[in-house]
């Protein structure tokens, strides 16, 4: 039994490793900087948004340094938004690989989710070090809380990715709905505001969006007592667990219908 489990684990690791390489190669290729695009791409996005927000003086609404505000906000958006985006088409291009018995539909999703998590995390770390090094912003006050918040946001993205991706397999409407939905969710996700800065009546509604809790927690970890954060880890964890469970059940239902080609 222990042998069985150990060998299953070894196979799982090999399959995920192979799929990760396969994804990196087709997405970034071997041209110019190759796999570095994995985190340079989200870095460019974040840099652009940071520059834009600095220009329009978005920080006149708060006393927080705009660079740190933009970095924490936009990195969070990239983390939870990129996973569902990549999961939408996880199955189609990989159908032929499913001929290999140990490559299962769920592996295709896990590989894409891991890759997005790695890329956006490396982008956040690299930009943080860069900005802190050039004294464009201060280091986080509570690194552990930042890490916890990041994990919660990643969990949300992974659950949403599985749910959206498995729904999209036999329903092309999902693909069409997700893109406008992700744009509409962006301004509501807490990236561009602090909950404490909005009128009290609006807070309750905004706090229905689970990612708002993650961003608030992340910023509390970063800015400490300089802000008043509004979040409920229990609420966000419950939503995350629900999404993940739904995604896994849905995946199990479609896995049997997916035919290798």
């Amino acid at each position, binding site marked *: 039994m222990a042998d069985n489990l150990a060998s299953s684990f070894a196979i799982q690791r090999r*399959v995920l490793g192979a799929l990760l*390489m396969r994804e990196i190669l087709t997405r970034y290729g071997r041209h110019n900087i190759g796999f570095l695009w994995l985190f340079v791409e989200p870095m460019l996005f974040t840099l652009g948004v940071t520059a834009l927000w600095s220009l329009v003086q978005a920080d006149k609404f708060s006393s927080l340094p705009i660079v740190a505000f933009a970095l924490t906000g936009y990195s969070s958006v990239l983390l939870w938004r990129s996973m569902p985006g990549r999961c939408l088409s996880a199955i189609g291009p*990989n159908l032929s690989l499913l001929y290999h*018995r140990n490559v299962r539909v769920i592996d295709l999703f896990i590989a894409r989710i891991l890759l997005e998590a790695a890329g956006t995390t490396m982008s956040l770390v690299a930009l943080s070090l860069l900005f802190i090094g050039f004294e464009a912003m201060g280091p986080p006050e509570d690194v552990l809380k930042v890490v916890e918040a990041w994990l919660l946001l990643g969990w949300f993205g992974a659950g949403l990715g599985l749910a959206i991706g498995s729904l999209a397999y036999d329903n092309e409407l999902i693909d069409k709905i997700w893109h406008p939905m992700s744009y509409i969710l962006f301004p509501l996700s807490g990236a561009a505001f602090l909950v404490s800065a909005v009128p009290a009546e609006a807070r309750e509604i905004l706090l229905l969006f689970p990612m708002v809790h993650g961003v608030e927690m992340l910023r509390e970890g970063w800015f400490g007592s300089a802000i008043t954060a509004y979040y409920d880890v229990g609420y966000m964890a419950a939503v995350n667990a629900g999404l993940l469970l739904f995604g896994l059940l849905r995946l199990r239902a479609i896995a049997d219908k997916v035919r*290798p080609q």
Partner: protein
Amino acid sequence: MIRMKGVCKAYATSQGPHHVLRGVDFTVAPGEVVGILGRNGAGKSTMIRILSGAEFPDTGTIERHMSVSWPLAFAGAFQGALTGLDNLRFICRVYGIDYRTRLHYVEDFAELGKFLREPVHTYSSGMRARLAFALSMAVDFDCFLVDEVVAVGDSRFRQRCQVELFEKRRDRAKILVSHDPNFLLQHSSRMVLLTGGQLLSFGNNADALDYYHAQQQEPAAAFD
């Protein structure tokens, strides 16, 4: 040993379920070469996919007590956007093999030259078939599933496939599927007929052929 028991498989269509396999029992012993004869649409490829483990039966069981290849088919179990070499690397990673130990063999057999380092979707169908075959020979299996692959390609390719599969690997079990009885007669020690979702065994190959030829006179019944 591979043992299938009471395997049923249906696919959903817009007009309700289409039953492909209706209770198939099938056993293959180590080293045995079995030919599965069936007309187009009889369910041969479904049978092979279930044997390989790429798909699961709706009901019934399948046991594998030897390592079984993926279906060796002309289209190949590889990703079109990757190069031939990257596909070799992928497969070697999945099966836990160092690709460098197989590179020479694949270069030699597939005869792709510089195209081994180009995306597979730029290949001609003959090149794809050669790569597919070379990749599946790069992994050492106890039992090979062969889905018509040897029937495609030019005579040189067919000749080399025969050598690899039936001479160099003559001690390995093989399950061959085809609609061409001559190919099966030439290579298999036992022939079974897949028809109406069931597998029929005959006392000898001549009876199986008689039945098959009689059936050929009827129009195809892909949907029932």
